């Protein structure tokens, strides 16, 4: 192997007569005044001088002609040349020397480049592509820690050097983005990261819009030493079911936020009204009743209230209360419409039982360094709750950290990670979202407080710019849309050659562009140890779990045999019980005919009439 053609300080071409290059493999360029230079193959090509490109100029060189040339001794294979475009990984100040010889590295030479941390000190996310050969010389502790998975082949042995993410370096280079289209392996990548975080007992809050983040089902065929029980490491919470928003703990700001979240946006008069009407220590009921009464009072108007009090036609005490409300708030909130709009929004949230619970269970789980999977009955509920939860948790952590400097007393609260799929819904680029402000704040300031984001999305182009810019590590799976590829090119150090490969990446393969490693690494993400509860193909599920009514009826009939056609009552009852459907006599006779015709049942004449029995085969 040797350097050919023209070179620059960043890129060189390496040619070889006998060795085919692998994409992403590392090479050492020897000699010259630069000493040994490390490089990574970013594009490969092979050509044969005897078999030129077919085109307008060259005719197509057919097999027969080549076979014939072989007969007189030409060896066609010998004329193959393999070419690799190599990105130089060292800093050079002048171009590499053309003609330098090139060799494969020993593991020790590139260890520093590939694995900065051992598996006990980092997150083992997968195997680095192109390191299959060099991995032969690696120490035992790096072996068999990243089994791979392929759809039709199942679990495969680790091939290559493991990619171990130095998560502690996140304190310097915070936040992770995971980008990729559907089916690219993005959710599965997120799962692998979460598994690793659980192993390291890093408190994490995961928002789970797809109800897939469960870690109880082990992956099929996983080797014994690799399997892991995450049972005690995570808990699942559902907003409105076991966790919710503690109304008494809300601040004005929180309340405005929730109102905003519940309806998309909120007018200035509504915001003012909400702030004015909300009192410290309000419960949901006291606040809501105040709003109802005020709306009523404003509808009646001062005059009618006075009249009512004079006429004694209505409850005096109630009217006096109304009057009090108008006196207190009438100036700030003059129209009942504003109040009703707030009420409508508040009720939307209340209807989801959000105000019946609090976040204590989550706080407890985080305190014990667990992963909290948070779900909601809809994406809307989840976003509303997420905005409240993230803000609350971040506030606690911030208060605690600030207290260490200010000397104020604050409750101890650990650093934590916030992870979510569909992140573009939580922090969208163009539109508002309840959680956007706090996610932005964490993106910019979270590092100081030890709060980190892991944001997965299939639409990086739709993710808020400020947030994207702060993601110091980006894991990029197959991406097809050109706008998303453009965003990725802009936000990472991914090379044009790599960007060209993005639409064609295999599921589960990713480029990890990270400020932590200082370069882009192509990685095959390891097999997850657990699977999502609905990893089953829906069509297979249909075949397996849902038989047609007809066949279910037939099964009931066979179970009830012997059946006398003169008395089908018991069969009808059994069918109803079993299937929850009512079948007529005709339905059953038809099914019986089918069963007999297909040979699964036999018809016999008996003194009690026709009898159907199951045919024994």
């Amino acid at each position: 192997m040797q350097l050919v053609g023209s070179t620059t300080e960043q890129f060189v071409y390496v040619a070889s007569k006998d060795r085919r290059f692998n994409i992403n493999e590392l090479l050492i360029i020897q000699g010259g005044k630069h000493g040994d230079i490390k490089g990574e193959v970013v594009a490969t090509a092979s050509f044969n001088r005897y078999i030129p490109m077919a085109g307008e100029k060259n005719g197509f060189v057919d097999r027969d002609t080549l076979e014939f040339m072989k007969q007189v001794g030409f060896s066609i294979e010998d004329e193959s040349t393999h070419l690799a475009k190599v990105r130089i990984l060292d800093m050079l100040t002048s171009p590499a020397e053309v003609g330098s010889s090139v060799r494969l590295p020993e593991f020790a030479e590139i260890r520093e480049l590939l694995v900065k941390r051992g598996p006990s000190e980092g997150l083992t996310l997968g195997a680095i592509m192109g390191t299959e050969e060099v991995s032969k010389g690696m120490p035992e502790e790096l072996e068999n820690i990243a089994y791979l998975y392929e759809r039709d082949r199942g679990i495969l042995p680790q091939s290559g050097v493991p990619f171990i993410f130095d998560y502690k370096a996140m304190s310097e280079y915070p936040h992770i983005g995971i980008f990729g289209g559907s089916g690219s392996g993005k959710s599965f990548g997120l799962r692998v990261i979460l598994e690793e975080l659980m192993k390291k007992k890093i408190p994490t809050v995961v928002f789970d819009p797809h109800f897939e983040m469960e870690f109880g089902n082990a992956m099929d065929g996983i080797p014994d030493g690799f399997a892991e029980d995450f049972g005690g490491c995570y808990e699942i919470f559902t907003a409105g079911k076991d966790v919710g928003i503690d109304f008494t703990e809300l601040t004005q700001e929180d309340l405005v936020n929730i109102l905003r979240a519940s309806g998309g946006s909120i007018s200035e008069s509504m915001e003012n009204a909400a702030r004015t009407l909300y009192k410290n220590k309000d419960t949901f009921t006291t606040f809501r009743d105040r709003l109802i009464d005020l709306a009523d009072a404003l509808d009646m108007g001062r005059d009618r209230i006075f009249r009512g009090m004079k006429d004694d036609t209505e409850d005096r005490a109630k009217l006096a209360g109304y009057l009090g409300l108008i006196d207190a708030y009438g100036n700030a909130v003059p129209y009942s419409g504003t109040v009703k709009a707030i009420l409508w929004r508040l009720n939307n949230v209340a209807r989801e039982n959000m105000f019946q619970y609090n976040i204590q269970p989550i706080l407890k789980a985080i305190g014990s360094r667990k992963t909290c999977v948070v779900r909601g009955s809809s994406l809307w509920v989840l976003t509303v709750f997420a905005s409240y939860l993230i803000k609350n948790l971040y506030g606690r952590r911030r208060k605690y950290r600030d207290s260490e400097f200010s000397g104020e007393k604050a409750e101890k609260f650990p650093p934590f990670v916030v992870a979510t799929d569909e992140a573009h819904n939580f922090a969208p680029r163009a539109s508002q979202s309840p959680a956007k402000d706090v996610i932005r704040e964490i993106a910019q300031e979270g590092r100081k407080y030890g709060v980190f984001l892991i944001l997965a999305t299939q639409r990086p182009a739709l993710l808020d710019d400020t947030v994207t810019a702060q993601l110091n590590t980006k894991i990029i799976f197959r991406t097809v849309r050109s706008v998303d590829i453009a965003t990725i090119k802009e936000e990472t150090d991914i090379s044009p050659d790599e960007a060209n490969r993005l639409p064609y990446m295999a599921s589960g393969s990713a480029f990890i562009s990270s400020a932590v490693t200082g370069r882009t690494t192509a990685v095959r993400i390891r097999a997850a140890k657990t699977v999502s509860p609905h990893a089953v193909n829906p069509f297979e599920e249909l075949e397996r779990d849902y038989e047609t009514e007809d066949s279910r009826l037939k099964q009931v009939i066979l179970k009830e045999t012997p059946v006398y056609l003169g008395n089908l009552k018991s069969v009808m009852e059994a069918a109803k019980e079993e299937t929850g459907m009512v079948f007529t006599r005709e339905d059953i006779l038809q099914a019986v005919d089918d069963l007999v015709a297909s040979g699964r049942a036999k018809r016999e004449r008996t003194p009690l009439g026709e009898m159907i029995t199951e045919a024994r085969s």
Partner: protein
Amino acid sequence: MENDLRESLKKVNGVLREKRDAGASRDVMRAAIEDKLGSIIMAERGRKPDWIRSVLAVDGSFNSYGSSFPYIINFFRSLAIYSCGNERITLNDIYTPILDMQSYGDEDNEDIMKDIRDGRMAEMEVRAAMEGVKRFSPSLVIFDGGFLRYMDKAGDIFGEYRRLCREKGIVSVGVIEEIGTFDMARRLRDGLGFPVEDDRELLFGILQPYEVLRVRDEAQFKKGLYTVFARPSLHPNPVAYDFFEEDGGTAGDAVSFLMSLTPPSSRGIPLILDIVDGEAKIRSGEVEAMVDSFLDRDIKEGLFRPQRDRRFAF
């Protein structure tokens, strides 16, 4: 397009069209050829004659750099590839009139230089072939181009080469892509009732793919040589193969063998000749690089660099 230009082109087309349309039908032409020249037979492709065990393919190229006489450097390269093991023999040389002023008189220096250059080129090709014949003893040597050029420009060494081959029983063939002779056309002209200018025009489109025209001995027109014509690919262009007279007996075998080395979709010459041609080619970039590394800058810029190079490129 300018009006008169259009008219002129139309006229050219008209003349040629008329000639073609007036010509005899293909069948008549074939009959005349078989009557006066030789037999048309279908080659047997895909069969390797036992006597051909290995081949040597030879080609050369030149390129030049410079302004005007005598500040011109000619670069030559000839290459022979031997089939067993893809062994290569490469010869490189340069020629510049500056070191050879005694060959030049007062006038027509450019023509003299052209003669010398062509001679050198032919000689180098033959030398590469001779070297290959000595070293490898191939069964068949394939030249890119007819033998007349070698006989004309490098007669002595080509004669020596021919003797060597005869001694060792080696067959040589020159593959001619662009047929430039007109002897056959002349011979046939009167019988056809319409004028055919040259041999290429005579044979174009007349032969079926893989048909060979074996010209009878008495109709052979190159002295000391034996020439076979054929349509070796789907392309209608005819190709000629020069053999030494003494190898005439094996010419049929050799031609069908060469056809098998020719991709059917190509324009008709054996693939190996295209390969040798490509490898032998001295590219302008190479010339520039050599000039840059061996001539001082002031000498190159002052004497050799063509003014044309300094034009703005549009």
